[in-house]
């Protein structure tokens, strides 16, 4: 079920809020688990069982690790749990990819495996892995209450597209959490703003991207429009989802970690990844990069660590070679910054901004491509000397100028700063007391209007 659907907004969500808040405190986790399973089964009835099996193995092995801490048995339990989690991910997400790649390399004919990807498997598997490792490292205590643990892993706000919530983030809130008008209002605000980002910006820019893809006459200008639109689309799609997840979490009494911090204002790729999908990059840092030795090893090994982490990051995003290449492109940029560029960029931030936006845009072209070859061809087309502009490109540029400008401004902290300045004045603060709730209500109505007018609008990150 998509958050940006009438069925979610006007059936599931009110029902879940009613069930949750009518339950006594001791049953709230059970209510949340039940509604989360319904939410998951709504999209993937068969795979709800798979998720429950994953949860159960994580629960059992974490308890066993907790009991045998410091012994070899604990390490064995950790390895078994990791093998099970990664094995599940490998079979359901990567089996097709590896089989096809193997067949292609050795010229073999292998029947397609056709294994469907369970929604959200990358997200909940990473949460399970981090939990089991954290228990092994004694960073957290194993959760004794199965319902509370299952509610954590399957919690519907973050289940299918993140952010990746670590157990330590919400450990305390799993047993005791506070509610109130301020928290609910913050949650409602984040949710509605996220919905607006997804429905009014990301989906509208997706129309432009689709128009480009459907075009038979792609001029150089059209490639640039597409590249800019897709880059903004990805940001508003994914950060919109994260906002909705964080907002829903807040309504139900949880504090989820932030996932985006205006990544397009970064002045280097290194900074970009501190602002983009932060829960994933910190996960790879803590559970892959640092265990590999991080940067505290010899330089060639440190560079290899970066390359390894970014290839895995690419693979995490999708089981295809264009995603691997996307990761490699970022690895090359990060290595270049680490070895050569960072000093220069720090002194020339304006150039750093332009350089970052430009290369991030190129990387996202590869991200969106259906193959590595197509990705490089599209990148090359940005600089081709063919048709510079055509009627079609100009038409779509005129038609999407306002959404593109709104998206470009919305991707910066400017609106937030203007609002903060306005609220800092006595009159402005008084006006915003009424204007902000009314504007949010209006935004919710406009989003509803777009949902009713449209039909199918899947989230980009649904299958990752």
């Amino acid at each position, binding site marked *: 079920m998509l958050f940006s659907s009438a069925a979610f907004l006007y059936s599931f969500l009110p029902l879940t809020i009613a069930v949750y808040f009518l339950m006594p405190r001791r049953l709230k986790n059970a209510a949340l688990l039940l509604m989360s399973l319904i939410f998951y089964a709504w999209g993937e009835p068969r795979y709800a069982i798979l998720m429950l099996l994953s949860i159960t193995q994580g629960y059992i092995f974490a308890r066993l690790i907790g009991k045998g801490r410091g012994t070899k048995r604990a390490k064995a339990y950790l390895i078994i749990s990791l093998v099970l989690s990664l094995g599940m991910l490998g079979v359901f997400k990567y089996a097709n990819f590896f089989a096809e790649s193997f067949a292609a390399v050795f010229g073999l004919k292998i029947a397609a495996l056709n294994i469907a990807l369970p929604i959200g498997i990358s997200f909940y598997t990473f949460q399970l892995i981090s939990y089991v490792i954290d228990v092994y490292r004694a960073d957290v205590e194993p959760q004794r209450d199965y319902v509370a643990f299952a509610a954590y892993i399957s919690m519907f706000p973050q289940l299918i597209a993140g952010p990746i919530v670590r157990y330590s983030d919400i450990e305390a809130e799993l047993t005791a959490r506070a509610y109130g008008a301020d928290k609910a209002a913050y949650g409602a605000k984040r949710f509605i703003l996220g919905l607006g980002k997804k429905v009014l910006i990301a989906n509208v820019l997706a129309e432009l991207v689709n128009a480009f893809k459907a075009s*038979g006459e792609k001029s150089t200008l059209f490639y640039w429009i597409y590249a800019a639109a897709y880059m903004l689309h990805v940001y508003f799609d994914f950060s919109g989802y994260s906002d909705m997840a964080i907002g829903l979490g807040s309504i139900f009494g949880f504090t989820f970690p932030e996932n985006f911090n205006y990544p397009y204002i970064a002045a280097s790729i290194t900074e970009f990844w501190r602002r983009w999908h932060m829960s994933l990059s910190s996960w790879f840092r803590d559970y892959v990069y640092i265990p590999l030795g991080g940067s505290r090893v010899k330089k060639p090994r440190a560079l290899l660590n970066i390359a390894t982490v970014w290839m895995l990051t690419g693979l995490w995003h999708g089981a295809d070679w264009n995603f691997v290449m996307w990761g490699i492109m970022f690895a090359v940029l990060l290595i270049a910054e680490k070895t050569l560029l960072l000093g220069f960029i720090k002194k020339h931030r304006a150039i750093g901004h332009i350089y970052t936006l430009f290369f991030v845009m190129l990387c996202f072209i590869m991200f969106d491509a259906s193959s590595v070859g197509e990705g490089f061809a599209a990148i090359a087309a940005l600089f081709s000397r063919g048709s510079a502009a055509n009627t079609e490109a100009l038409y779509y540029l005129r038609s999407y100028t*306002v959404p593109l400008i709104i998206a470009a401004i919305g991707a910066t902290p400017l609106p937030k700063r203007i609002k903060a300045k306005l609220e800092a004045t006595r009159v402005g603060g008084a006006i915003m007391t009424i204007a902000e709730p009314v504007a949010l209500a209006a935004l919710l109505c406009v989003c509803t209007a777009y949902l009713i*007018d449209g039909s199918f609008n899947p989230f980009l990150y649904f299958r990752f």
Partner: protein
Amino acid sequence: MRTTRLKSILTVALAAAIIFGFAAWGMLKKDDAQSLSERRALAAMPKLSIDSVLSGKFMSDYEQYKLDQFPLRDAFRTLKAVNTYYVFSQRDNNGIYIVDGIASKLDYPLNESSVAHAAKRFGYVYDTYLKPNGIKAYLSLVPDKNYFMADANGYLSIDYDKLKDMLTADMAYAEYIDIFGTLSIEDYYKTDLHWRQERIQDTTKALAEGMGADDAAEYTAADADTDFYGIYYAQSALPLKPDKMYYMQGGSIADYRVYDYESGKYVDVYDMEALSGRDPYEMFLHGSKSILTIENPNSRSGRSLIMFRDSFASSIAPLIAEGFDRVTLVDIRYVAPELLGRMIDFSQYTDALFLYGTGVINNSETIK
């Protein structure tokens, strides 16, 4: 602090009012069977069963049901259209654009394989039925509203000359009758894709002359006394002014006998009940019909016409029929050309006209 608290309470209250309010309204309101503005059946509540849940069908059907039965659905669609046009300043909404109160739908780009498909099916008809019976073939294309509106107002427009050249090249057996010059944007309904019957006398004349048929009848326009909200009115979701509808009387129209092959009955030329139905344009020869024959008892021409057509022909056929003993209209979007020999005796016909809107030729996947 007090203002922050007030803001929080207001935010929660308004959001909850909308979400819980529309959720309750949606549950309590009676389901609508039809969308009048969209002219389609709306989804009904799906049946709950183990099979439908396990297959995911119940869920997908329920999501469609929620969208279709949402309270104030048309008002929300209007809100979306207003935001698209006036806030985002987008040039079209779902492909619909409006210039001076006239609505049209973008049809771009030129779909060459679609043109080829149409030509291939017409070629089959010619080779199978027309050529063996010595029937003289004609071709005419009806320009859509974009021909007059799109390019002039900065909207995307297909190359009409190229479309015509492609089709005529593939249909060398048919004599082309050009009617583009007989039409202007005023000859079309503002809220619909079709032309207005009371404004196509010149077009009728051009077609009749092109086929060497009689075009001497005098007609007068009768007011259908109805507000016509065309298909683009529904699709635009904006409060456009309705069109007035007229239909032509005079000539031999009152004496025509129209045979409907689907019902096996004779029917009227104009279906006055359709004026209050979902699509008033269906008043002309009863809308979508696979095969109809207009018999003109007053004609002494000795000629019979078989017209392969789309919906534009419904309103012009009664005018063209003046010059023929019989005009049979065949819509090969609703009947496969392979079956026509069983239903029509082609030896009775002297002439054939392929009369199609450019929109159907450019989107010919519906042609069987």
